[in-house]
């Protein structure tokens, strides 16, 4: 599509033939974040096919992903709670745009899933599948579809996706 913008547009050959000054570098920014005690134990749980949260004894609130301190009361009296691998959709979107702005045939379906066993409104971000996007609704009951145990890596992708049940 031609856009009606002023200026001189560049073509690939302008760059390849060095008609314009360019500089290139490949980014070299690598990190290995310590997960710490809260997220570390959460990820270990995923490897075992379990979803763990923490309960703040002061606020009487169960959150997921778990944390070893409560950001509301700032205390660290928390206990670990094993949650269900089921939940309900808090919100979702049907995404048709790829990283390079091209269109995708099968839309991506990110959703916030309130996990059964956590306090109301507390859930995790993940993706949905095995569902016709047209049928998606807030409040829909979904359950986790896990990787096979030997394929799990203590990683958020140990859950492949969530599907209605």
């Amino acid at each position: 599509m031609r856009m009606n913008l002023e200026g001189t547009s560049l073509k690939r050959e302008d760059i390849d033939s060095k008609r314009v000054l360019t500089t290139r570098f490949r980014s070299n920014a690598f990190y290995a974040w310590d997960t710490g005690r809260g997220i570390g134990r959460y990820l270990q749980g995923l490897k075992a096919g379990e979803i763990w949260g923490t309960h703040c004894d002061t606020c009487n609130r169960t959150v997921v992903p778990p944390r070893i301190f409560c950001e509301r009361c700032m205390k660290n009296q928390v206990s670990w709670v094993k949650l269900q691998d089921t939940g309900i959709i808090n919100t979702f979107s049907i995404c048709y745009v790829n990283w390079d702005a091209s269109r995708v045939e099968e839309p991506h379906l990110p959703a916030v899933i309130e996990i059964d066993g956590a306090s109301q409104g507390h859930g995790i971000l993940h993706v949905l599948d095995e569902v016709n996007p047209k049928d998606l609704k807030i409040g829909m009951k979904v359950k986790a579809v896990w990787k096979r145990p030997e394929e799990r890596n203590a990683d958020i992708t140990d859950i492949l996706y969530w599907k209605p049940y």
Partner: protein
Amino acid sequence: MSNSVAIVGVGYTPTRKLTPEVSYKEMIYEACVRAYHDANLASHRDIDGFISCAEDFLEGTSIFDEYTPDQLGGIQKPMHTISGDTLLGLATAVMNIRTGLQQLVVVEAHSKASNIKTLDAILHYATDPILTRPLHLNPHFIAGLEMQRFLDISKNTLEQCAEVVVKNKRNALKNDLSTYGTRLTTREVLSSEPTSTPLTQLQHAEPTDGAIVFVLASSKIAKKMNRTPVWIKGCGWISDAPSLETRDWNRCAYAALSAQMAYRQAGIRNPKKQIDFFEIDDTFSYKELEHLEALGIYETGKSGKALLQGALDPDGKTPTNVSGGSLGMGHVLEATGGFRTLEIVKQLRAEAGPRQLDKVKTGLAFSWRGLPTTSGVTMIYSQKGA
């Protein structure tokens, strides 16, 4: 001055090379809880505003200021991030309080240097993408250039720079927070692996992990909160022309001018006499001498001799980096000026234990933003309020 500002609480974690047992959030939380206890805070809900000192590229997260409220008890409160050293955050907190809109402000800084697998590459991205990066030089070369010129102009010597390392690592042995305390000789320092000459490996402070949190209060409430508030009498911050092509290699204007700004506010005319001790940037050995001279504590070329005569030792006339500095405690990225300030708070409260200085009332902290910058912040702290 009725609008004085004081540090009424500080909390921290020890500086360590590796901290795999905690996430950065858990590390900050640990420092935060201690700071609030130290400030006798009834509740974190009483805090009016929060400032975190962090650089996205060092965190590996864009818009890092969205990741800071939870661990400080700062949710649903005013919060912003300064991408600079702790001292710049503290200066910002002073301004916030002086507006009269906030009484109680928290400043946080941390380093998870151990989590950055390509720290030198991140540093490289601070250099000019068109003029400098294509040359593919490890950015520490800039320290080599600076040191070469500094020694040539000032006539301080390599041995004197090595002695800075010997002193600071010796001082660190008396600091239970430090990681790099050791006994060395200047020969060992000079014969360690050459990096960017004249620098050798032992003249670099090592990237290290740690977190620090300060609670600052207006004069109205400071004395009620803490029996020994530490007053911020002056703060100055300066950025010079940073490009490698146009900067002034002959003088360290960012340190000199930031100090003058802070001295003006604090009413200091003779810093050497009026300030009892110094906690200043020593990211590289020569930086301590360069900064001392720029701050006006010694004339050009006189700091090295003073060092050899023991004037910079804990029992000398101008104790410098009694804490061990970054060479002894490790370089904690944006938290560096925070740990320099911590030592001053401890000394002024007479809580410095085996390294407690006699009769100290006023201390100076100075931070440099690090390679490749020409930016710095000077803070003057005092036992006495205005």
